[in-house]
């Protein structure tokens, strides 16, 4: 099953570690908050993604395995 990244937007405090550790998938907006590129994380970036999750100072970043079920996205 593919891995995707998600962010607890209430926790996120714009530390910006994630964009530093995973620039291939995460950029920052004008205020330092992350913009994640949609879609599954390719295998060769999984290690970096795990590190970004572990290094987030407020534990706002999550890596999860999701079933490719489009009906779950609607709500």
């Amino acid at each position, binding site marked *: 099953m593919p891995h995707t990244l998600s962010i607890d*937007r209430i926790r996120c405090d714009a530390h910006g570690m994630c964009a530093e550790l995973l620039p291939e998938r995460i950029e920052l907006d004008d205020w330092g*908050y992350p*913009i994640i590129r949609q879609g599954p994380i390719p295998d060769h970036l999984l290690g970096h993604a795990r590190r970004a999750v572990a290094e987030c100072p407020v534990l706002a970043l999550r890596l999860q395995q999701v079933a490719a079920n489009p009906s779950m996205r609607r*709500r």
Partner: protein
Amino acid sequence: MTMPCLLSGPPLDAGGERLHSQLTRLGPLPPPQRRGEVIDELEVAGLLGRGGAGFPVATKWRAVAGRGAGDAVVLVNGAEGEPLSHKDRLLMTSRPHLVIDGALLAADAVGAEEIVFYVGSDHRAAQQALSRALAERGSEITRPLRLVPSPTGYVAGEESAAVHYVNDSVALPVTTPPRPFERGVRGRPTLVQNVESLAAAALVARFGGAWYRSAGREVTKGTSLVTVAGSVPRPGVVEIELGTTVGEVTSAAGGRRGEVSAVLLGGYFGAWAGVDDAWDQPLDPAMLRARQLTFGCGVVSLLPAGACGVETAAWIMEYLASSSAQQCGPCVFGLRAIADATMRVATNRAAEHDLERITRWSGQLAGRGACRHPDGAVAMMRSALGVFADDFAVHQDNRRCLHGSMRSAVA
């Protein structure tokens, strides 16, 4: 339409319909033990939620029914925080028993042990009508039931915020999952459903899903309440057969008052369309979505040709930025920045690149909040940038308005 619908019955300004009157007119709900079957009928009906998101009602009820063990909660959402919408309070005020029917029905169908009526604290008449109607129901009320006045504010009606308020008196959205259907009021699976959706369900339970589908001209079937606002002689709420066009619903409110340039569909969370594009557009959630428009909570608001679309969009953005729950960075800073820049452009104080930045920021915020507040705000903004493109360009480049800057009735 001759079929009984949400607003048929006694005059709407006569106060809440009494129980005996509604019973004479519509008959009783099916008995409690048969109310589980109504979920199938709701599915046949194809009823979509009327709070704004348009999520299928049957799917939502089934999700809660599948999780609870008779301990679910029904949260009746009558917060109605959208500034242009009046349909929920009209329904609660004039047809309180239909809303209560929907709540009792849902409680039996999903297996609920409690019902919470969450009604905007500003909607006094609606609260009074519901309280009086609840007192009339007597022994029919077999489970604990509360009326919780909801705080004023745009996000208070968002479903996770509603649950949060009932639990902790904090009307702010929370990070999901878990969604309310998984863990809501007191940690129980909770059905959060708009009052109009519940009232429609109460009709489907009586007359069936196939009956409900006998109304509706296009893709989505049934009837819906619509609030017509802006440049019309008789702004207010009408019930329409889905698929009725923007032009027809405007006629029901007395027609255009003077020239009209654009229409805001779906409310502050909705989208703008040019009047010529919109006039023959059927008000049908599926067809609107296919055109990147939205039915939302059923608002149709007409912008007079003399009013400036840039200024109107700026006031709406200002309202939405001020309504942010102030919890998520992209919403706190992004909406505020868009609102400030749009106001500068509107008031002919545009800084260099303001329009460019508004456009870029508006493309970055969707999906980046705990709730969908930023999504709705930037959808409105992006549609405004398209429909009022010429006005935005003149405001930005020449720092002037093509319209004499008349404050519009829309915002």
